[in-house]
């Protein structure tokens, strides 16, 4: 995996709230779209803070969920690519 740093685009806002159950959302604050997330997607997106590189994010993510590493890597890369394609995550950071 490339050693790049990614961050959530400024067009998006992540939200986690404890109501009767815990709710996870991704909001597009420019066009108003709302995406209901699951916990895994939320945790992964939240790790892209514009400081850690993708390798570090994967290590933390793998520690959180402790799945089979190769399978997790494939899923991680796929999700990362989807979010990059949709410009939810952008390259760069601090």
């Amino acid at each position, binding site marked *: 995996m490339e050693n790049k740093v990614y961050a959530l685009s400024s067009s998006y806002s992540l939200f986690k709230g404890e109501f009767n159950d815990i709710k996870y959302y991704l909001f597009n*604050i420019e066009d108003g779209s709302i995406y209901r997330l699951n916990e895994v997607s939320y945790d992964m997106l939240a790790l892209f803070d514009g400081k850690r590189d993708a390798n570090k994010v994967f290590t933390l993510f793998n520690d959180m969920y402790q799945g089979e590493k190769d399978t997790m890597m494939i899923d991680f890369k796929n999700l990362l690519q989807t979010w990059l394609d949709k410009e939810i995550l952008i390259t760069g950071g601090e």
Partner: protein
Amino acid sequence: MYDAKAVENEFYFQWHFVVKCNLRCIHCYQNHYNTNELSREKMLFIAETMENTLKKWRKIGRISLTGGEPFTSKSNLVDLIEFFDNSEYFGRIGILTNGTLIDDSIAIKLARFGKLSEIQVSIDGSNARIHDQIRGTGSFLQAVNGIKLLKRYGFYVSIMFTLHKLNQNDVLNVIDLANELGVDAITIERVTPMSENDIEKLFISPENLHEIYNKIYHKKEKVEKNSDLKIRVSRPLWTLINEDIGGFCPVGFTSLCILHDGTILPCRRLEIPLGNIFSDGIYKIWYTSDVLWQIRNKKLLTGKCKECTLLQNCGGCRAIAYSVNGSYMAEDPQCWK
């Protein structure tokens, strides 16, 4: 026609499009009255931003146009109503007014708008002595004449009665007045004190409020049997009188307030600026405001509200909690439970 399913899918905007007012009511939530009006382009921007939001959310809009006093800016008022009347995303339009500047000429202009479903006139006493000490000399007669004129033109007219210490003994008489005037509905809303002075002068104790609400409820049962007047009891605390009435406040869930300069508040009486429609838009505020997310989370309520068995149908007034207790998540200070 009232459509319950459509109402469930409504989003409510209260837009104070003008700040100018011809009255100086003692309990007014405004602290200035002389700001320049927005240009037509900027007003249109606000209207279109609301429209785009409704389109995205697949909601039907209900809008109340108010001020200040909306009839101090008749030309803009008519233009805005025309915009919302023509918009497929807005279902119902209302005007909130003090009723003193309404004449035949404006009534004729307004009568052509099919979606103008309600004109609410503020009446704070059943006679000039009580009303005018709150709203200014001569305002009672003007407002009553305004109501009569609107009824002549066939509008659905409601009265807003802001309840506080100075008029608490007159509320049943105002219901009678509403009936005499052929008004369609009356809302009795507790005042939100905006200062320590307001609390001292206007705030009604929970015990007194309980007594007043009981009287109003008994009056409602009688009046609604014998006339078409509706006495609205859908606000917080009413469920303490009868568990089948009352309601959770829509603030944070299905409503927003926009001031004349584009500032967005959760509610006109909960004066916490969340942002500005020109710089932030609606989405950013609606999705990221900590204030709104806290209000949406009933688990975060404190005091009596937190464990209350009636919470689902009440929740107290967040604005009064904020103004009296200093926290918008605090218990409603007028709750007698």
